[in-house]
């Protein structure tokens, strides 16, 4: 297409970057493979890979199924209901994508745990104990569904919002029943997104680390990620870890390659504007019930984190040096990885939107998937083996590996956020841009940046929050001198200092939500000021 502005520099830069990222991933894989063949067989490994695969698949499959059901119901309810605070509530559900798994796991314990709110209430009112559903498979599923159900709801809500006004008017004039409307309008709108969404949720659950680490309660309910961590840190079974990592990469790659054939899932993190629809009373009642339950399920654990954290240990925590040290580390790591993710995303997406050739577009799309194929703990393990084989002390390399790995972590979501709108600009305004002979810089400064300011903020927020909440990468690399807040929290839990852990969880939660809400707005403002 010659109506695309010719941007050879953009394409060259993004190809170079794609090659660089691929090179690093290849080096990491090579380090893992090399370790698999050279690490001496120090006794027999106790790891049962088949069992792990089966358990992880069951867990991820159930998570996917339940999350899609919950997400569909919640999206439907949000689409039908109008009430003050609706935008804020949707904003909170949207934040599920960045809410640290550790925080949710901790909230789960204080709501659903043995001494949690629900068990206490049940004991007080009926003298019946509900046991401890926060632990084991049920706990993992609950925590995953809280996050992934809300994530699914946000994406599906955007699909419902996109139903054309005319179609709704026609439906309304035919006086469709709620069920008929769902089948012929809503389901049609959501159907295309479901397979891709299912693949994403399955991957997220399959590679879940902090939730499974905290709630799994032992080998019966491990994911491969947790098993790798346990093999390295607890059993010093490097060979086992490497075999697990290879299995993990294999399974993830299969899922990604099959998902690549599915329709893309738009990231949908903007505000929701739904056209109104007059519904039957029973349907509205049902919508209110669904919304109420979902809100309780999602908000209660997080609220309990805030209550527990801000009440008990905060003052005490604020007076420890290690807390301030870890906070500074987390802020620096988060900010640098956010900038790195933005740079990667812009370079890749600008190059991609300037490419007319389909093959080139595929090549430039691949690095975004790199992290999904090589998840946090595996990437971290590979980085660990790689720097060790280069003769560098892992402690010295830790900050670089953690920043780079965290930047890659957010890349798939970041590219899904900035890529499509950049493509749209290139396609819809390409002729005008090209015939005016605008330079690449003019195109970016005058057109792309002002239109995408908010998305730039979303990318920064996603990456900052992912990195702020990350445990998977830091768990293998962290040292006494190089500790982030999640690692500090994990250590506090391990040492039964649960007041400290609660306070850190509350701070992480406030930090992620604040960044996630503030950064997109800030950048929308900044971009507009440049008009």
């Amino acid at each position, binding site marked *: 297409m*010659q109506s695309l502005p010719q941007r050879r520099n953009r394409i060259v830069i993004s190809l170079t970057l794609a090659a660089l990222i691929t090179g690093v991933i290849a080096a990491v894989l090579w380090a893992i493979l090399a370790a698999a063949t050279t690490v001496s067989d120090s006794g027999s490994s106790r790891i049962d890979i088949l069992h792990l695969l089966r358990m992880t698949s069951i867990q991820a499959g159930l998570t996917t199924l339940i999350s899609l059901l919950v997400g569909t119901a919640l999206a439907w309810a949000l689409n039908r209901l109008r009430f003050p605070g609706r935008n804020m509530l949707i904003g909170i559900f949207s934040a599920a994508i960045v809410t640290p798994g550790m925080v949710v796991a901790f909230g789960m314990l204080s709501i659903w745990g043995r001494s949690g709110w629900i068990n206490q209430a049940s004991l007080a009112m009926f003298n019946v104990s509900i046991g401890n559903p926060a632990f084991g498979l049920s706990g993992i599923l609950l925590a995953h569904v809280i996050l992934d159900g809300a994530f699914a709801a946000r994406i599906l809500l955007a699909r419902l919002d996109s139903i054309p006004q005319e179609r709704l008017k026609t439906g309304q004039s035919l006086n469709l029943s709620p069920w008929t409307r769902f089948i012929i309008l809503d389901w049609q709108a959501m159907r295309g997104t479901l397979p891709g969404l299912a693949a994403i949720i399955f991957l997220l659950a399959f590679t879940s680390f902090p939730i499974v680490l905290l709630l799994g309660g032992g080998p019966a309910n491990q994911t491969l990620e947790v098993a790798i961590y346990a093999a390295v840190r607890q059993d010093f079974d490097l060979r086992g870890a490497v075999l697990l990592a290879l299995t993990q990469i294999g399974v993830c790659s299969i899922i990604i390659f099959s998902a690549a054939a599915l329709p893309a899932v738009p990231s949908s993190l903007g505000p929701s504007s739904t056209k109104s629809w007059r519904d039957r009373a029973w349907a509205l009642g049902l919508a209110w019930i669904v919304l109420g339950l979902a809100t309780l399920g999602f908000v209660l654990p997080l609220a309990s984190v805030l209550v527990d954290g801000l009440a008990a240990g905060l003052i005490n925590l604020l007076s420890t040096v290690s807390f301030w040290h870890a906070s500074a580390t987390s802020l620096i790591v988060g900010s640098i990885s956010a900038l790195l993710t933005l740079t990667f995303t812009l370079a890749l997406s600008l190059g991609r939107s300037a490419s007319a050739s389909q093959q080139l577009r595929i090549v430039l799309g691949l690095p975004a998937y790199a992290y999904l194929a090589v998840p946090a703990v595996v990437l971290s393990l590979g980085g660990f083996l790689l720097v060790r084989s280069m003769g560098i002390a892992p402690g010295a390399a830790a900050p670089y590996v953690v920043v780079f790995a965290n930047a890659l972590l957010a890349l798939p979501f970041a590219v899904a956020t900035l890529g499509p709108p950049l493509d749209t600009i290139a396609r819809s305004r390409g*002729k005008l841009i090209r015939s005016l002979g605008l330079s690449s810089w003019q195109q970016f400064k005058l057109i792309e940046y002002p239109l995408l300011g908010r998305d730039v903020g979303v990318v920064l927020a996603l990456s900052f929050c992912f990195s702020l909440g990350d445990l998977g990468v830091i768990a293998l690399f962290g040292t006494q001198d190089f500790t982030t807040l999640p690692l500090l929290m994990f250590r506090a839990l391990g040492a039964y200092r649960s007041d400290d852990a609660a306070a850190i969880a509350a701070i992480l939660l406030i930090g992620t939500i604040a960044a996630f809400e503030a950064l997109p707005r800030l950048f929308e403002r900044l971009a507009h000021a440049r008009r």
Partner: protein
Amino acid sequence: MLVVDRLTFAYRDQATPYQFSFDAKPGEITAISGPSGSGKSTLLDLLAGFLSPVSGTIATNGTNIVRLPPEQRPVSLLLQTESLFEHLTAARNVALGLSPKTPRTETKVAVDAALNEVGLSGFGARLAAGLSGGQKQRVALARTLLRARPVLLLDEPFSALDDGTRGQVRSLVVRLTSFHCWHTILVSHHIDDINAVAHRHYRLDNQKLALV
């Protein structure tokens, strides 16, 4: 003179290729009409350089421009809608017609003069999104003034306008064309527009142009 000679082009899987031949004089409006889907926009895309012909020539004042990329062609473009960047001010949109190296003060003077010439002085600071359809087209014409290219391509420029504004923009195009000696190619399927402004009228049918 703009002379297009046996300009040949076919989309993939198209049985009979287009073959365009026509000429246009400076200071005149040359209209192209034809049913929807007959290839009018395709012709403009060829002239603007967004599509590459299989063979044939496009000559302005004796120079063949058929190998030039769009940004180097002596051509300005005005589309039915979307001629402006809605998020920029009118003045910014107009200034895009100048080289970015033009000094600030010079740009301001030129932009003000151009906006004045299309009857929009004082509108410079307004966001394009807030302008009416007719005002948008006039801002786009002001930008064309600064670009000072001898060929102006108009693709259905009046179809989104209501009757009153239509007349205004139409007579503005006539005035600018003759004053600046542009070769204006007007694509339209409204016979009223064509009768009102065109000096010459070609009809596009069966992949060929015929003088009416």
